[in-house]
């Protein structure tokens, strides 16, 4: 498929490429391309490099440090950074809390919180899920009780990704049990150094530590750190969940996975196996199909139209393809998916790998990727939403 970019757009693409070449750590890119994990420093270093160029949060409003890019430029930027294996953006600050702050926060909150997110100096975590809430977010139980000019927060959040790196956390807390469950929720910004916050690491099945239980015991949060009005937090939370920036991160990642899969299949003698080729071809068409949907959204955005219903199934298909790619990799690698090497490829790891050198990350990635159809609103929840809001059932 040919996309006719303008000469200006092609020039922009060249600029992005040159910038990546010059500023993005090749070691980090190699790790991304080989399916290995990154350290916090890798994310921060790339974010700061982008920030120095003014590109760390290009989708933000210009007044807060965003860029006045066309949809095509966003597309090119994400395609190039994704294709090159640059560390992917960490969403909690730039993509989740920031839009809430600039939309519903007061001037002081904007001045205090947006610049360090833009610069990469402050790392945020998300405090939505609770152990007994799951997909039913509004059933949350963490309490915030007003005490003078502070809220006193008690309760616990779970699945707080990378809270161990976080300087701040945004969270939903119950300030009232009157009325419907969605009422009585307040949106708070909390300094992670506040006394009374304890982290309990959750080890996921592949052996990694990405998520935590975050426990709040009499944590005092200044009222000044409340977003908007008390008891209106559900409105801001829904805004956040619905804030779909134009995002095609899944497609470049899937293409990277496909390139890696083809290398593995070649090495394992599967490239000529008609059944495996058939499955690879099918997967490749699925990726192009998802990409086509992204392009439809882009075309609609360029024409100033609301993307509408198309956007709603991207999460479903993107995560299904992600899981499919990890399964195909398992199949291609075969028996050497068995060795357990949770730190394979980590900084300082210098053991000889067991099996082919591409094998180590394959099973952990397969295991870890089971999460993607669960988190961010499980795919079942997404289907409920489409059934109701798109099909009218």
């Amino acid at each position, binding site marked *: 498929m040919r*996309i006719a970019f303008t000469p200006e757009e092609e020039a922009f693409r060249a600029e992005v490429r040159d910038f990546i070449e010059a500023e993005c750590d090749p070691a980090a890119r190699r790790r991304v391309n080989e399916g290995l994990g990154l350290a916090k420093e890798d994310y921060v270093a790339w974010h700061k490099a982008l920030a120095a160029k003014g590109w760390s949060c290009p989708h933000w409003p210009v007044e807060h440090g965003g860029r006045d890019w066309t949809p095509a430029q966003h597309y090119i930027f994400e395609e190039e950074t994704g294709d090159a294996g640059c560390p992917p953006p960490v969403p909690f600050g730039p993509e989740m809390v920031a839009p809430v702050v600039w939309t519903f926060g007061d001037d002081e909150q904007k001045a205090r919180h947006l610049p360090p997110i833009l610069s990469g100096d402050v790392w945020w975590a998300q405090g939505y899920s609770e152990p007994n809430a799951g997909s039913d977010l509004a059933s949350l139980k963490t309490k915030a009780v007003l005490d003078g000019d502070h809220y006193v927060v008690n309760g616990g959040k779970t699945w707080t990704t990378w809270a161990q790196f976080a300087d701040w956390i945004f969270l939903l807390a119950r300030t009232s049990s009157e009325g419907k469950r969605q009422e009585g929720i307040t949106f708070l910004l909390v300094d992670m150094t506040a006394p009374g916050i304890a982290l309990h690491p959750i080890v996921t099945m592949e052996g990694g530590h990405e998520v935590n239980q975050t426990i709040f015991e009499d944590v005092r949060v200044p009222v000044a750190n409340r977003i908007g009005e008390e008891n209106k937090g559900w409105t801001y939370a829904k805004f956040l969940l619905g804030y779909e920036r134009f995002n095609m991160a899944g497609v470049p990642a899937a293409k990277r996975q496909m390139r890696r899969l083809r290398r593995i299949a070649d090495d394992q003698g599967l490239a000529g196996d008609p059944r495996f*080729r058939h499955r690879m071809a099918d997967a490749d068409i699925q990726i192009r199909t998802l990409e086509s949907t992204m392009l439809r959204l882009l075309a609609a955005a360029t024409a100033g139209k609301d993307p509408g219903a198309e956007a709603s199934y991207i999460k479903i298909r993107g995560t299904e393809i992600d899981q499919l790619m990890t399964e195909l990799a398992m199949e291609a690698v075969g028996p050497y998916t068995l060795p357990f090497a949770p730190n394979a490829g980590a900084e300082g790891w210098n053991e000889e790998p067991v099996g082919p050198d591409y094998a180590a990350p394959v099973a952990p990635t397969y295991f870890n990727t089971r999460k993607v159809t669960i988190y961010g609103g499980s795919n079942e929840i997404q289907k409920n939403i489409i059934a109701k809001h798109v099909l009218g059932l």
Partner: protein
Amino acid sequence: MLDLELSEEQRLLKDSADRFVARDYAFESRREAVAGEDGFRREVWRRFASLGWLGVGLPEDFGGSGGARETAVLMESLGRGLVVEPYLACVVMAAKAVALAGADAQKEELLGGVVSGDLLLSLAYAEPRSRYDPAHVETRAEAAGDAWVLNGRKGLVLNGDTADRFVVSARAAGGVADEDGVALFVVDAGADGVHARGYPTNDGGRAAEVSLENVAVAADALLGGDSTGGARVVAEVVDRAAAAVCAESLGLMAALNDLTVDYAKTREQFGQPIGKFQALQHRMVDMFVALEESRSLTAVYMADVDSAEAAERQLAVSAMKAQCDKAGRAVGQEAIQLHGGIAMTDDYIASHYFKRLSAIHRLFGDIDWHLERYARLAL
């Protein structure tokens, strides 16, 4: 930037086709047309001509307009209406073969006739043993002085029972499946030795087996005077037909999805509309996603069908056909299942959409065939 929005002309074409289907192509009158002798209505065909549709996808120099995307726009609307008139067989396939392979004089005569609605052409390329390979040509063309003598049997010639003339592929040289050595001839349906045995097809269409016994044709019947490149022309035409039925399947799937969701909202079982049952809801969401994804892929790749690069065209067509067939199978089967018994009946239109989708899956390469070609080109 990528232009996925319909142009003004495309929008007009779509509106007029949608309007025609909605207003003037009722299921009952279609049924009568299917049961009639020709399997379609001549007056509808003349209407197509007057609307300019019989030139859609043909060269402007010979009265046509637009390319693969315009063909797709029209096909999608015709799909929604389950239209049986032979636009695919005559215009997208046979006339396009003339446009690609013919000399100017041949194009002038034949395309003029097609565009005006006065001439019906069918492409006789497939054979009883050719399956999905357009280069598999056993029919023989033997030079006899300036003229040619054709012998062989052509299978599944779409709308071949009403064609005035056939565009026939015949092997002038080479082995049975060689890409080179195939010639295309224009043969009168009434010529000596030509026998077309027409029959209905499961999807409400018509086709014919055409036998050629010592059929003598003059030198000017050979398209473009080229007796060797015909298989490549047919391959391109078949790709275009595959792309066209992908677009058609969008219309079919959309109709089935709408019918299913509407039925689920009104059909009550166990005290509530069946659309309230979550298991069925999720399956209708899968149907919706299957259609939307097919729409996306065809929107982006349809333009590649006009590419001068065969590999680019083939990759796009194979991706689209594999995706649309996969989606169409799922949507069709689920639409029947979610409706229940009513959709099993000939009286209810859903079964006809389903059968047309099933026919499409067996035309111009099935999923396996296209995945194999896709793998060869893309992996």
